[in-house]
Structure formats: C-alpha cells, structure tokens
C-alpha cells in the first residue's frame, strides 16, 4: 500500500508538534522516522495510524483520502513501544483478539481462528508458547507476540513505535535483523519510529530525519549518512564534531588558518562538520585545527582521541592509529568534512 501525507500540521495547545509535513511511502517500503524525543515522530506515526488526528492536512492510503477514518477502519497493524499485550489473556488469545472481536457475520469460526493463530505464531517463531501469559515471556518474545497480534487482522500497513526501545542491546540487535527479514518475507509497507540512528540506518529502506516537528531530510541510509542536508542531520545520524569556521575565498578558515576544505557557494559564518574516522593527526606544519589531547583510549582496533580546541565548545573526537599523550598539543586535519551555514548567530570563537 502506498501512503501520502500532505501538509500535515498538529498542535497541542500552543506547542506545535508537527508543521506542514509532506511524505510519501511506496508499496512494500520500510520507512524509519528518526529523530530526538520531541521531534514529532511518534505523533506522525499515530496520525498515520488514526490514533491522533491532524489539525490540518490530508492522509492518503493508495491515493484515497482516509484522514477522517478511525483507527479500526484503516486496517493497520500497530505495535506499541511497551507492546500493550493484554495481560490476562494467553499468547494465543492475544493473537486471536482481532479476529474474535469481529461482528458475528464476519467472524471466522473458532477453528479457523485457532488455525490462523497457530500460523502466525509459527511465523514469529513462537509456535509452542500459545498457552503462556505475556508475563511469562521475555521482552523479545513479547515483541513478537505483539507483531503477530497486529498481523492477525491482515493489515495493509504495519506501524511500529520504537519497536526495540524496551529491549536490551543484544536482543535488540538480533531482533533488528529478524524484523528486516520478516518485512521482506511478508511484503507489507512498514513504518517504524526510532531515536537510534544505527537502528534506522541498518533496517530501513529510507530514513526520514525529523526535528522540532519538521522533516529535515528524507533519503536512503547512505544518502542521509554521506550527504546530510544540514548540520542537524549530520550530527544526528552519526558521531560528529562541529567546529565554527569562516567560509571565505572558497575555503574554510579557522582562526586565520586556511583549511584544505572547499567552501562552495558559502560565505561567512559556517559550521565545519566531520566524523571521528574522517580526521587524522597532522604534522606540525599542516593546515588543521590546533588542539590539546584530553584522553586517548583503545577502541575497535584503533585509538579514540578526545581533544579540546581552546574556545570551542565540546570535546573533539577522532580515531588514530598511534596514541598521543594527554596534554600533548596536536593538529587535527579533517580528511572528509562538510560545511554548513552557521545555524544561529555566528560563534565569536570562529573569528
């Protein structure tokens, strides 16, 4: 099923949760809504589900305006962050709930419901656990029960709110791979919300980066990682360093030092962004950022150096092969960096 959101806006009192959101999802696509808390991603998901309604704008499913349909009429599967399993029902009763509440005329016979439940539990690899109560399951198992329950009503669209949020790191990683494979097998259009960029980049076909109720960028994982639209996206989708600089004469200039970074179509106060693995320790004469080492620790086969640049807020991180001593003066040479116009008033330290 294809989805189109046109000019969606939503306010809670004076707080603008979403403003003017436009977004499309292709049939069978796996979309991630990525953003910090308060960015409006969950509100957007709930609007697509029909659990919230926008103040303005239109929601289309398959080019049909369904903005005013209730959640029950939209035929979607929704998986809640805390799973929202019915605690007094067994796993099988939970999964069969959607079928058992249908009006008598449309309700499948009891035996058909049982068969369908069985089939779904096999699909999520919980075939033997139908008789258990949710409290007797692990977090990952509960998550899959919630998924099976959502699928029982044959939804055209699967919506997941922070599907891995309540799990520990190891299970989270396993379930992530499993969910991606599951999506491809089932072939539904799916949208999930996450604040974890690694999760979004690893699982989704396309990532929608959001902040402050607006979409910052929509793109494939490599597009948002390698070609972020702005400093926010750069910062949010991976580890990053941000240094205020001046863009002049086609180059980035840091306190009079002309860096080997081209500034195309940019003048004045700017922000130099680079990832820790896209920088090296320079020789004393190199054009780079003068810094003092705070800390050097081994990390994934290399050395993670934390350094500070006098007058620049926050520590700068880079990965090197040899460990400098704390207190040592170094020159950081970004090998791959992006320049963005300074977001707010130009930082005095850049001059």
């Amino acid at each position: 099923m294809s989805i189109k959101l046109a000019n969606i806006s939503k306010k809670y009192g004076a707080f603008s949760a979403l403003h003017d959101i436009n977004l499309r999802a292709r049939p069978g696509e796996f979309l991630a809504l990525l953003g910090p808390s308060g960015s409006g991603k969950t509100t957007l998901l709930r609007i697509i589900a029909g659990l919230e309604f926008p103040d303005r704008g239109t929601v289309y499913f398959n080019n049909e305006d369904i903005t005013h349909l209730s959640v029950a009429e939209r035929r979607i599967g929704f998986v809640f962050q805390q799973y929202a399993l019915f605690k007094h029902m067994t796993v099988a009763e939970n999964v069969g709930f959607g079928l058992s509440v249908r009006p008598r005329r449309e309700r499948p016979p009891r035996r058909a419901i049982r068969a369908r439940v069985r089939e779904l539990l096999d699909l999520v690899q919980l075939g033997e656990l139908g008789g258990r109560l949710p409290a007797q399951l692990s977090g990952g198992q509960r998550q899959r029960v919630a998924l099976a329950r959502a699928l029982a009503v044959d939804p055209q669209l699967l919506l997941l709110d922070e599907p891995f949020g309540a799990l520990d790191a190891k299970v989270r990683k396993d379930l992530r791979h499993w969910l991606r494979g599951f999506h491809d097998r089932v072939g539904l259009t799916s949208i999930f919300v996450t604040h974890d960029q690694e999760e979004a980049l690893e699982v989704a076909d396309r990532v929608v980066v959001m902040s402050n109720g607006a979409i910052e960028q929509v793109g494939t994982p490599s597009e948002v990682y390698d070609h972020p639209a702005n400093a926010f996206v750069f910062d949010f989708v991976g580890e990053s360093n941000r240094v205020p600089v001046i863009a002049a004469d086609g180059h980035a200039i840091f306190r009079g030092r002309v860096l080997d970074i081209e500034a195309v179509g940019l003048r004045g106060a700017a922000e130099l962004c680079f990832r820790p693995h896209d920088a090296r320790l320079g020789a004393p004469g190199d054009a780079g950022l003068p810094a003092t080492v705070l800390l050097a620790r081994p990390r994934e086969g290399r050395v993670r150096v934390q350094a500070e640049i006098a007058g620049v807020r926050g520590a700068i991180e880079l990965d090197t092969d040899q460990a400098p001593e704390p207190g040592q003066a170094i020159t950081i040479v970004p090998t791959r960096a992006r320049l963005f116009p300074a977001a707010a008033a130009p930082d005095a330290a850049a001059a």
Partner: protein
Amino acid sequence: MPAAALRRAQPGRALLMTLAFGFLALFLVAPLAAVFVEALSKGIAAYGAAVVEPDALAAIKLTLIVAAISVPLNVVFGLAASWAITKFDFPGKSLLITLIDLPFSVSPVVSGLIYVLLFGAQGWLGPWLGAHDVQIIFAVPGIVLATMFITFPFVARELIPLMTEQGRDDEEAALSLGAGGWQTFRRVTLPNVRWALLYGVLLCNARAMGEFGAVSVVSGHIRGKTNTMPLHVEILYNEYNFAAAFAVASLLALLALVTLALKSLLEWRYGVHGKAVR
C-alpha cells in the same frame, strides 16, 4: 557494616514495634473485643433474641437494601468517572477529580443536611414533592441518596490511580485491532482493573452499611421503618439496652472483620499476580 548497624538498631526496632502493637491493642483490639464481650454478656439466648427482634430485623433488611442500591450505582459511576478521567482529555477534568473527593472533605452531617435542604418539607423541592406525594426525606430514598453521596469516591478513588498507571495503550491496541468501545471495555479495561474494582466495592459496601452521620440526619429514626443498623444501635444504646445494642453492633463489627479478611485476600492476590494482573 550493615549487620552491626542492624544489631545496634535492634533496641529501637523493638521499642517501635512494642509501641505500634501496644497502640493497636489498646485502641483497636480492646474495643472490638469489648463489643463482643458486651454483646454476649447476657448469654447466647439474649444475643439471639436481640438480633431477631422485629425492629432489629427491619434495620438489617433496610441496611442491606440501601447497600444493594447504592453500591451498584457507585460502581457504575466510579467506572464511568475513572474511564472518562483516565482515557480522555476534556475541559473540566481536574474539576471532576476534585468533586469526586468532595464527600471525603465534607462532614457527613453536612451531607445529610444538604438533602434535607433540597428535598425536605421546607426545602427547595419540598413543596413540589409534597404536591406529588413523593417522600424522600425521612424515608428510604433519602437514606439511599445520603449513602450514595457519602460513598461516591470509594470506587473511583481505587480505579483512577491504577487506570492512570496503566495508560491508554491497551485500549488503543484493542481499537487498532478492530474492537468497538464496549468490547474494549469488557474484554480489556475491565479485566485490567478487576481486583481494584472489587477492592473499591468492598470498601464502598462497608461504608454504605456503616454510615451513621448523614443517614441519621435524613432518616427520621422511625423504628422498624427508617432505621439502619447503626441508627438502631444508637437507639438501643440510648435506651440503656446495652446487651441488645452491642449484639447488633457486633454484626457490624463482623462485617468489618469480613471486609478486612477479604481485603487482605485481595491484596495477597494483587501481590502474587501483581505483574500479571496490573
């Protein structure tokens, strides 16, 4: 070292426990025991006679009727109010929460007087009621109204915190799976709150049967007609008929003990199945 610290704290612990239990024994257990001792002071036969005496039986019957009407109505109200407060956002929500607590903060006598003022012969609606031959004050309807007012908060007060804690996810999940409002209530919400509801019903019932002040104002104390058990106890006591007074009182005390036992049982179930139930 924690063990040593604990040992040093022992005398203090013993003192606190002695104090707590001594206090309970003096002010709770002793009076309760006294009720039963006094009730049986003239023998089992006198006790039995006091309980099955027609006026006593009428009082018991009236008490049961009042509870049978007011408790179910309060259950409906409590569920509706808690549902509205915890599952929806609407203007006037905090006002509703405050109003639910009103009967707790008002003296029961005042609660009774409110109804006399409204429905009494000299009250606002008195003339109209009189013209249509409807008696509310000094009759059963007044007693039921006063009892309902007093017991208003019990069910809602139990449910609101629990339902707030449980949030709306379960209901939204049910709706997203195609369940209607009534199905969601019956199959998801009600099972989620059943123990708290039962607990609220118990407390509500105990209060409905035991309420004195408000009922006393609206009842009119007509023997065999508008006397509930607590009122009957008072009348017997004022007539220096102590054994009979305490015999009827012992029934109320028994009710309290049964309520307490059921409450403990529920708490135990809450505790054991807390994770599964809540």
